[in-house]
């Protein structure tokens, strides 16, 4: 029922040049969010 996509290429991301750099940016962003949430908790508790 489906057309063949087994040769579908993995295109590069539209920014940062490679997927590993994009993944690293997401992990850094997560660390930053947790740090901000921690600062928020400390500031208002």
């Amino acid at each position: 029922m489906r057309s063949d996509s087994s040769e579908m290429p993995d295109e590069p991301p539209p920014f940062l040049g490679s997927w590993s750099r994009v993944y690293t940016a997401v992990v850094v962003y997560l660390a930053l969010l947790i740090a901000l949430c921690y600062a928020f908790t400390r500031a208002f508790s």
Partner: protein
Amino acid sequence: MRPLDWVVLVGSLTSIIAYGLYRGRGSNTVDRYLLAGRSMPWYAMALSIMATQASAITFISTTGQSYVDGMRFVQFYFGMPLAMVILCATAVPIFHRANVYTAYEYLENRFDGKTRALASVIFLMQRGLSVGLTFYAPAIVLSIIFGWPDRLTTLIIGITVVLYTVTGGIRTVTWTDVQQMLIILFGLVVALVMIVLLLPRQVSFLDAMHLAGSAGKLNAVNFHFDWNDRYNVWSGLIGGMFLALSYFGCDQSQVQRYLTGKSIAQSKLSLLFTAMAKIPMQFFILFIGAMVFVFYIFEPAPLVFQRVEYNRIRQPELRARYEPIAASYQDAFTRRKGAALAMVEARHSHDSRAESDSIASYRRAQQDLDAARRQGASLVEATGGEKGFRDTNYIFLSFVTRYLPAGIVGLLIAVILAATMSSSSGEINSLATVSVVDIYKRHFRKGASDHHYLTASRVATAFWGAYAVAFAGLGKHLGSLIEAVNIVGSLFYGSLLGVFVLAFFFKWVTGTGAFVGMLAGEAAIFAAFLFTGISFLWYNVIGCLVVIGTGMAVSLVSPAAPGRPSQF
């Protein structure tokens, strides 16, 4: 609801559905009906993924959760970005290249038919239970506002959802999701602005945050590790990551979203965008709940937010038991309000000693108020109310309908109903896909025409809609709905994740190993659920590890049969 609310409500819902049907026209083949002809751009997939997740439950239950328990629930989402990165590097390209309609179809390519069938059945059980809860949330809304019976409300919403999902397939589902998500974001901002505007003039936004924080409502992060503590950074990062891996990697309601992508890159971008947007969005929703808490420091809140039970415990025959609780609640409210105003004044005059004193009084009053609310809930329970009664799901809606102006109420009700329709349509669509592709076509009717499977998909969609409506009433027995949905998911996701980990990373594991592993994983999860106090976030870790361990052990003693090598 006033006339303007009705105009906003009906107008916004009608336009969302009309737009979705317009974008979904031409879904006349199975490929277009179930996978939108693999034509969707990343932003539509991302908003659709978020919208499917952000149901009415998210909106009404999360805010109530924050009012009662603070913002610590946000940690539940910390594992999601890690999970998305792992999925983008593994599952997304594998599923795309495997040329499949469902995640479970891939399991037959990799293992065998029985493993695919078991995974499909586990998905159908889990998602079938959840979709009923998705329908139940708006039934709460309308039962509070209009006093309509839950069943009738569920039926009306169910028929609407089934009609447009059956008609337009996943393309309609996705484009209605996009509109619905935009309305949700707009509604969230409007709700927060309105709450802040309704605070007393002398209480600034910063004061409100200090008041919420001093009552422990802004407790977004806790680094202390405890197995039995439902939400801390570690359970969020590890348990939440496993849950997100399971949900986005093995749950067809999510996998089907990114299988509609134009390319692997578009699908990856949709997941990564979701990962980045989800935590701030949940933070924002929880923050709204914390601000509703601050609002009710200055405005009297009912002892019990569920109006029907509240009216019942105030009946003359229960007065002797109700009045002492109400008196202590009122006393605690008055003391808390006085202490809060004193705290604000001390902050403004930079009097640190007066501020410390007022914070201590404020916290004592808050403890007394919480105790009175617990007694109120116990009274509901002891006098014929539901066992384990909680009014978490009613807090935000009580506030909306009582204090917000005409038009805004209609907008927020539209948000809640649209969220329900969008989530349930996605779930029903995925249930129908698995029923037809993995069960009906695989085991009952092979080799029929495309038109036959298209008709079967529409019939299955209607069936799952009816099923969801029939089981929606289960929601009233499950306390906080947002937790109930995640607990139900955690009972099944761990073993699904485990079998996909075996499929992706352990080439030598056999179909029998994977099959027995899944059964063992489910047994371990239910044992943890029934016989231990372990937090549900860890069920996914436990289930996944048991599946992997058992699958490997069984494969060692029963290697793959000749002529059926493991594939990757």
